[in-house]
């Protein structure tokens, strides 16, 4: 009884906020969205926040999120100043292809889409819901990121109000990377960004999600990104999570690949006190290829959890996965990588590697690969390692004149390089190298 009462109190905050949202937006949103949100809210009230007794949440306790008193974005001021404060977090390559969001709401005044071709549709989601694309959105939204069992996807869906809509019609190729910059900097705010990407046949684009926020107090981001990649289309996807060190970040990425579609993603986790990323790539037709990489780098007081699912539903698809973790201080990492190969998915190639570098004796990581294979003609492999810096490597670099700190940072850089070098956006690569090489208060290493 006690537990139930506590849970009710925890979800009560969200029920109240939902009612407010409904009153504020009921007349603006299509009726199908109103229904979808209601259904999701009902699901969330039923599910509540996930308990650590659930296998999927064994290593990540979200009680601090449940207990916190976050406030909805419409109750806070200062969005404009916040937006300006963080304006330098737009990557150079995306200066004219960026959508800026403050506390989950699209800010057209801070955004620029000048570099995008007219055929590409890149809109704030609230605007898109009022446009001719409403029907397409209605057919796709929440179809992938199912919320029947996913607590945080349900919560996000209940609060769908804004986010981004990216639609690449057949054959449209976008050169400039499309950046979505999510800023949370207005007190203990909660935001629920929602992103929908529809890439039609033979289209190509690069999408960057970047999350930043104030370091001086807790706030909560619950994001859901759904991506549909049609035949022969190609999407490069980067997610750079640099939330403030007291922030909470939960995100769900769901990707569907059709025939010979390609999806390459790199998820970089640097911020937040608690981060959980659920990423699923579903290969539904022949010849799809996905590369799902990640780098998480955490220090004292941080917890980063990745749960990934690569699902092979069709023959002759390929998936590569490389996740690397760098754990310092009293930090905690979790990697749970599941590869599921259906019986029909013959001649599947699926590879998964998770490597962890422990820079401190107090850091901890739990890594768990899961292969479930029901086809008989497949090539699958997985591996996980947890290690420390090699004494001999440190000594070698020191005999070349590098201080202990610099040697350590250089070896850490070398460890991460396998993930970093594949990043095709220079600014992201440079940013990561700088972050890695300047750790431990060592003066900057210039590795150009």
């Amino acid at each position, binding site marked *: 009884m006690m537990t139930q009462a506590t849970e009710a109190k925890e979800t009560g905050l969200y029920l109240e906020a939902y009612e407010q949202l409904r009153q504020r937006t009921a007349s603006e949103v299509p009726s199908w969205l109103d229904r979808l949100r209601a259904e999701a809210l009902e699901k969330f009230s039923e599910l509540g926040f996930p308990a650590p007794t659930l296998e999927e949440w064994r290593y990540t306790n979200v009680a601090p999120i449940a207990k916190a008193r976050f406030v909805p974005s419409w109750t806070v001021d200062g969005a404009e100043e916040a937006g300006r404060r963080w304006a330098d977090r737009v990557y150079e390559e995306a200066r004219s292809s960026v959508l800026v969001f403050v506390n989950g709401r699209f800010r057209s005044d801070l955004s620029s889409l000048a570099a995008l071709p007219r055929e590409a549709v890149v809109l704030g989601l609230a605007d898109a819901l009022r446009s001719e694309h409403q029907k397409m959105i209605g057919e796709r939204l929440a179809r992938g990121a199912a919320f029947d069992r996913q607590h945080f996807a349900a919560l996000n869906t209940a609060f769908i109000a804004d986010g981004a809509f990216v639609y690449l019609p057949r054959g449209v190729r976008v050169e400039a990377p499309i950046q979505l910059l999510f800023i949370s900097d207005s007190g203990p705010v909660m935001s629920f960004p929602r992103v929908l990407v529809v890439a039609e046949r033979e289209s190509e684009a690069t999408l960057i999600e970047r999350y930043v926020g104030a370091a001086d107090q807790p706030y909560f981001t619950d994001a859901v990104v759904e991506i549909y990649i049609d035949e022969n289309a190609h999407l490069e996807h980067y997610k750079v999570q640099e939330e403030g060190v007291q922030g909470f970040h939960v995100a769900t990425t769901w990707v569907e690949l059709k025939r010979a579609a390609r999806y390459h993603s790199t998820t970089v986790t640097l911020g937040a006190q608690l981060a959980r990323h659920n990423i699923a790539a579903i290969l539904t037709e022949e010849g799809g290829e996905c590369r799902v990489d990640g780098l998480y780098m955490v220090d004292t007081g941080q917890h980063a959890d990745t749960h990934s699912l690569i699902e092979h539903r069709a023959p002759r698809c390929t998936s590569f996965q490389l996740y690397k973790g760098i754990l310092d201080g009293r930090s905690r990492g979790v990697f749970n990588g599941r590869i599921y190969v259906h019986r029909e998915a013959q001649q599947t190639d699926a590879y998964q590697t998770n490597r962890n570098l422990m820079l401190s004796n107090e850091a901890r990581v739990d890594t768990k690969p899961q292969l479930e294979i029901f086809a008989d003609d497949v090539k699958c492999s997985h591996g996980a390692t947890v290690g420390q810096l090699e004494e001999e490597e440190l000594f070698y670099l020191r005999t*070349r*004149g590098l*201080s202990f700190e610099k040697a350590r940072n*250089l070896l850490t850089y*070398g460890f991460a390089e396998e993930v970093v070098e594949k990043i095709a956006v220079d600014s992201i690569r440079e940013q990561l190298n700088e972050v890695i090489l300047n750790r431990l208060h060592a003066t900057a290493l210039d*590795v150009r």
Partner: protein
Amino acid sequence: MLEIRNLHATIDDQEILRGIDLKVSAGEVHAIMGPNGSGKSTLAKVLAGHPAYEVTEGEIIYEGKNLLEMDPDERAREGVFMAFQYPVEVPGVSNAQLLRLAYNEKRKHQGLEELDPLEFKELLAERAKLVDMDLSFMSRSVNEGFSGGEKKRNEILQMAVLEPKLAILDETDSGLDIDALRIVADGVNKLRRPDNAIILVTHYQRILNYIIPDYVHVLYRGRIVRSGGKELALELEEKGYDWIKSEAGVTASA
């Protein structure tokens, strides 16, 4: 330049060096020879500052300073260099990156301007010629996937870039075929100068045909049991280490 006095060193509480005395002056090449397990590599590693070895007695004075009080990286910046017997692979860090970082650390220490990537590239191209190394090696991860000979050449390239005052070559000749040996030896010879010194640790006399030493010392059971000129190496080649062993045995029992 270097004076080692009564050096005792242990690893895992086992005494390996039992009282080494050695004086090396600028412009000299000293060969340290000896059978396996005599302490040659230990001496090299103690000079470089390997943390696994503990110096229990004696001292090492380098350029008037107490070398044993210096960290490995301080020693390096002060001009001490060791070419490793087993060069270490550093995945994800390119040869050019490491070389430029190391070079600039030394420049900074000397109060000189650092070189930017372009300036350094020129310097590197010139030094790479000394060891006949293709520039394609520069963008590869340090020693990763290098053959044994390439690794050894890479060590000498590092030496050529860092221009140490005191270079300790730890069995740089081991595992090299005759062509590679000649390239490595030529490189070292070109780096010999009146103001630097080389300590060449080797099991075999072979490399001394190419790098002519001024002095040869024979190490046995952690002590220098014999010193002489380059002819001592030839004598060893002819008679083998058993000669030294029996002689040392006689001395010990006498």
